[in-house]
């Protein structure tokens, strides 16, 4: 078998005069319609065009307006037109294309990636078919999509893809197939936009800037409004100081006694030996409210089972520290509890004379 150029892709530029010459030369590839000439769907597949290389070149030469263009790849010409399956090594599109575009002085180097890519992905050419779909047009389109995009996409990560892209970059847009031309024009437009300020870019960035400014403004205004909201003119909350009754009433509590009547005010009145204390009802674990269990002589939280002695010391369950005591004092014989001042055992504050009344 001799090495020669094989046609992988053929297309028709604008300017066809509908002369029938191409269909005469290569009827399998070209089809002349009433007002134009098209490539037959089958011929979008390079495995189809390769064996027909001679007739395609002939058609291109015979075209009076020279609108038939084709891409070639160096390959081993089969002695006889062979089925596509016999040439799996040339199935990856970009790598052979790179080989074709490479300068003739470096044929070995150029064909290297082609071989590699072929060796790495011998089975990667997907066989696409819609089972049971008899429409030959759909079948042909699927095969074409596979040959052009599918295999190329899969092979894009192989070494050959880079070379192919470079080779296509060097060509002028007029020599490229329509899809590659489109990509080239788009990337050129992008590059141009990058270099200078285009009108579109200017408008876009202005809109962006206005948007960000608007967002910053809105955030700032709502932040100020929120801050204002957090500092109301009038704060309706109960006076932290509660007058709960005469000292003589609570002095009647026996040692160890717990008065549950003040629970709604947020504390228990408890007599611990000769001290009267106001114990915060909020559990130090997660803020539930324990219940006083007189039989067990303990406070027990219904949420996670923390237990506190009647003094407020934690001894069971997860609470990490004892209950807090409130400031308590007597004004004119009336017991006053100040819930804004707390005394914590672990900080040694229970010795503070404000934290208890001696009775």
């Amino acid at each position, binding site marked *: 078998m001799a090495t020669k150029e094989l046609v992988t892709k053929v297309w028709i530029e604008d300017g066809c005069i509908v002369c029938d010459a191409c269909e005469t030369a290569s009827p399998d590839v070209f089809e002349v319609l009433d007002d134009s000439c098209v490539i037959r769907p089958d011929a979008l597949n390079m495995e189809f065009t390769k064996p027909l290389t001679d007739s395609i070149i002939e058609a291109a030469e015979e075209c009076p307006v020279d609108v038939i263009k084709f891409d070639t790849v160096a390959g081993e010409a089969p002695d006889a037109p062979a089925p596509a399956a016999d040439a799996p090594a040339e199935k990856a599109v970009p790598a052979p294309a790179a080989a074709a575009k490479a300068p003739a002085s470096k044929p070995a180097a150029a064909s290297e990636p082609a071989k590699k890519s072929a060796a790495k992905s011998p089975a990667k050419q997907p066989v696409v078919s819609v089972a049971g779909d008899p429409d030959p047009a759909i079948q042909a389109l699927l095969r074409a999509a596979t040959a052009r995009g599918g295999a190329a996409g899969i092979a894009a990560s192989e070494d050959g893809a880079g070379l192919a892209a470079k080779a296509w970059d060097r060509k002028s847009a007029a020599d490229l197939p329509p899809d590659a031309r489109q990509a080239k024009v788009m990337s050129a437009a992008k590059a141009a936009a990058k270099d200078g300020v285009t009108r579109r870019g200017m408008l876009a960035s202005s809109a962006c800037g206005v948007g960000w400014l608007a967002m910053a403004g809105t955030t700032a205004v709502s932040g100020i409004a929120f801050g204002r909201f957090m500092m109301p003119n009038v704060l309706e909350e109960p006076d932290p100081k509660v007058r709960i009754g005469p000292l003589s009433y609570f002095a009647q509590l026996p040692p160890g006694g717990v008065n549950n009547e003040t*629970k*709604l005010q*947020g504390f228990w009145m408890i007599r611990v030996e000769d001290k009267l204390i106001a114990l915060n*009802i909020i559990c130090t*674990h*997660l803020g*539930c*409210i324990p*219940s006083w*269990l007189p*039989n*067990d002589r303990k406070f*027990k*939280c*219904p*949420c*996670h*089972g923390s*237990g506190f002695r009647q003094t407020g010391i*934690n*001894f*069971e*369950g*997860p609470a*990490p*520290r004892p209950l807090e005591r409130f400031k308590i004092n007597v004004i004119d014989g009336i017991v006053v509890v100040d819930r804004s001042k707390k005394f914590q055992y*672990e900080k040694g504050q229970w010795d503070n004379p404000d934290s208890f009344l001696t009775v």
Partner: protein
Amino acid sequence: MTMTGLDLLAAGDSNAIKDLINTLCQPHWFFIIASVAMIVFLVGYRTLTKPAVALAGGLAFTAFYVLSGFDSDFLSIIQKPDNVPITMMIYLVGFFVWLAFRQAAVNDQNMEEGKPLLEAGSDDKVLVWPDLVYTELIALVLCTVALTVWSVILRAPLEQPANPAVIPNPSKAPWYFLGLQEMLVYFDPWIAGVLLPGLIIVGLIAIPYIDRNPRGNGYYTLKERKFAITTFLFGFLLLWVVLIVFGTFLRGPNWNFFGPYEFWDPHRPAALLNINLADIFWVQWLGRGIPTESFGMLPHFVVREAPGIVLLSFYFFILPGILRYTVFRKMGNQLGFVRYMVMIQLFLWMAFVPIKMALRWTLNFKYFVAITENFLNF
């Protein structure tokens, strides 16, 4: 004299059976039984997931559940509108675990015999229109009907406005948070409420970056992924589902443990005197008082908590290195340093939860390190 459950059944003594089950439902026994059951299931999954065996298991559980319903205390638990989803959860978890392991069993068998996997050649792509959209429409309609019927039949368990003098006892979280509430019993709020949930979420996110083993991708298997699946199931079934079951069936008034057939008596005595590692070490082992003096540069609480600090430092900083060259040698080689360290820290934190729960259940153990002065309690 001891009697087995079968003897009791034969004798028809339902109270004795209930007492036995109540005893077995003490948290440490329940957890041990659940762990053993999980291991047995993972070992015998090829037999146990056979449709007939699995169906028999499901029917046996249903019979047990229905018979339990004749007990008024159990019935009052499962009848609560709050707890209806729990029954569904038990059945759904059971069904989906079976479904996954059934396919894993078939696949593992096929792999050994060189047959194709269940998933081989299956194209699980579905057309969005009409297949997916129709499926979603039907699901939407069915869900709406089910929720409507549910909310009409069972009244929403709403209560009177909050009142600090009248506290629901026990106060339970929504069913899906019961596992979290259970963890809060054993750890300080910032650990159980912030750190551990954060670790669960971060850990789940990190799995694809830690575990780059391609085996098991796209097909069910247990044989090829024993460690990964066992670890995940332990975290999911035992440290989440079982904790929800604890919270539903076993936690009663004052957040004490009750048997499933036990009357929820709020005045039942329960002595749960907490003990810290410092108490055990200094008082019980060394027979001296808890140190209150500082030692050189070390403040007194560091001296006091030295045993716990040493133990936890060993657990979180030395143990990963030891495991790296013993149990997890092969895995450590595969993962590399960073991935191994992330994996082992997540693993040890997960193991920390049942360790501390077991210590609480058996010893009333509270803290390894209790620096309440600075809110550093572990």
